[in-house]
């Protein structure tokens, strides 16, 4: 406990030091103040845009896009991945396609999608879908294959029918992988949405704010939006997926599987 307290205080000292160094550089006048605004100015900008609601609107637009695409990826990737794990034929068909498409970064599709669907929401949502589909698919597939065959036989011997086998054994057994898949998929989706918004959005979204602020040298607004993006990513990673993990695999005592 004492050890932990020391770590916290040292972390605080580091952050304060880093902030002080930044502040000193910003005030030294070596760099143009437009390029390196003081922390005070960044905080003031952050408060202003939060108070007038524009930042919240941008964040809401980005969240809408990312959650829409992410949900589509779950709806498509999870059943298909499970099907791949259960059926050899589906696996033989989907796996080569997935391994050919996976190494293409999702952002490479942005220009093509812009041509096909025009600027706007559709492109961002589809890019998010593309980015988060493969982690979801491959993890669901790996999870179903990793279910211990002994459990399947035991459940079968105890008279479980196909339906019960699926819902009571396979899904819980694959859940550590599925949750890892959700996590990775969201991480990719979050990167993809910011990039897609920079390249393809018209006037809303956090990625667009950062990119647009560059044109007007609003470095303070850029740094404020970066902080918002980091905060949202952090909240999803720790709170949403962390509590999902606690409510399922940790409670079922499958942590070791989740780590491996």
């Amino acid at each position: 406990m004492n050890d932990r307290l020391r770590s916290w205080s040292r972390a605080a000292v580091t952050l304060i030091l880093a902030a002080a160094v930044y502040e000193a550089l910003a005030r030294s006048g070596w760099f143009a103040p437009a390029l390196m605004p003081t922390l005070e100015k960044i905080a003031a900008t952050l408060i202003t845009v939060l108070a007038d609601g524009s930042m919240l609107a941008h964040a809401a637009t980005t969240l809408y896009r990312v959650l829409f695409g992410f949900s589509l990826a779950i709806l498509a990737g999870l059943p298909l991945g499970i099907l791949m794990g259960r059926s050899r034929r589906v696996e033989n068909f989907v796996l080569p396609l997935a391994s050919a498409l996976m190494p293409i970064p999702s952002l490479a599709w942005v220009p093509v999608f812009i041509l096909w669907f025009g600027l706007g929401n559709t492109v961002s949502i589809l890019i998010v879908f593309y980015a988060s589909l493969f982690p979801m698919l491959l993890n669901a597939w790996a999870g179903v294959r990793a279910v211990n065959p002994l459990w399947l036989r035991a459940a079968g011997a105890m008279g479980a029918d196909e339906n019960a086998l699926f819902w009571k054994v396979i899904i819980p057994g694959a859940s550590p992988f599925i949750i890892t898949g959700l996590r990775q998929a969201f991480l990719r989706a979050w990167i993809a949405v910011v990039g897609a918004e920079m390249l393809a959005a018209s006037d809303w979204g956090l990625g667009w704010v950062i990119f647009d602020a560059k044109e007007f040298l609003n470095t303070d607004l850029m740094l404020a939006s970066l902080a918002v993006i980091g905060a949202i990513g952090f909240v999803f990673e720790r709170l949403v997926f962390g509590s999902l993990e606690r409510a399922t695999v940790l409670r079922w005592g499958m942590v070791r599987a989740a780590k491996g």
Partner: protein
Amino acid sequence: MYDAVPASPASATVSAIPGATEDARWRVIARTAFPFVVVGGAWEIVAHLGIFPPRLFPPLEAVGSAFVRLTIAGILPHHALDTLVRLLAGFTLAAFAGVAIGIAMGRSRRAEDIFLPLVSIGAPIPGIAYAPLFLLWFGLGNFSTVLLVGFVSAFPIIFNTWTGVKAVKEIWVRSAQAMGADQRRLFVKVILPGALPYILTGLRLGLAQAWRILVGVEMLAAVPWGLGWLIFGAREFLNTDVMLAGIAVIAVIGLALEKLVFQRLEQFTVVRWGMMT
């Protein structure tokens, strides 16, 4: 859009199966090629039906001829080479800095306390979000691109190296010390090999991250050559065939990085030493 890389995944899957007889090998190739043939056929049919304008939805032969034309003219290889050089430069930067910081964090309590808060704050922000900031600070072009790629891919390398060094079994360290190993030998002979599986995982993740970011950054940074720029620039002239040919090259490079570089490296080190199967 699925047909862009017909040959490479087939060969990759085949080589993964040891000791396959000639007959089984052909069956595997046919099985792997089958989905590509189906999707490619569907693409051809849709393209030739003329539902979409052919400029936006070119048939495969147009993509193929764009690929051949650009390759012969030397344009495509030049773009690919520039992208690869940037990737390697950025990744090398990240590998050295990341492994050094990670090892320092794993070995010294003080370094851990200093770097961990900074790294934990920087990591959850998607790398591409930093791109406009880097462009403002360091200007358009190569320098910003390489720096950003290095910066972004350093995070997984730092995290994994740190975990790896901490995961080296205490008993190995103690027994090496009991046998009289000095600090340097302890580091080179025990800690480094012990942490290597993690470091390799980190490098692999870092390279994948660098690859994903690089293509996007090239579109933003207005570099004169590069695959990302090729695709983005082709949009202006509605050259969908050029874009798809560029994406095919991106897929091949991505696959090659994963299959050739890292699986080999792993086989030569940790698998041979019996630390991973």
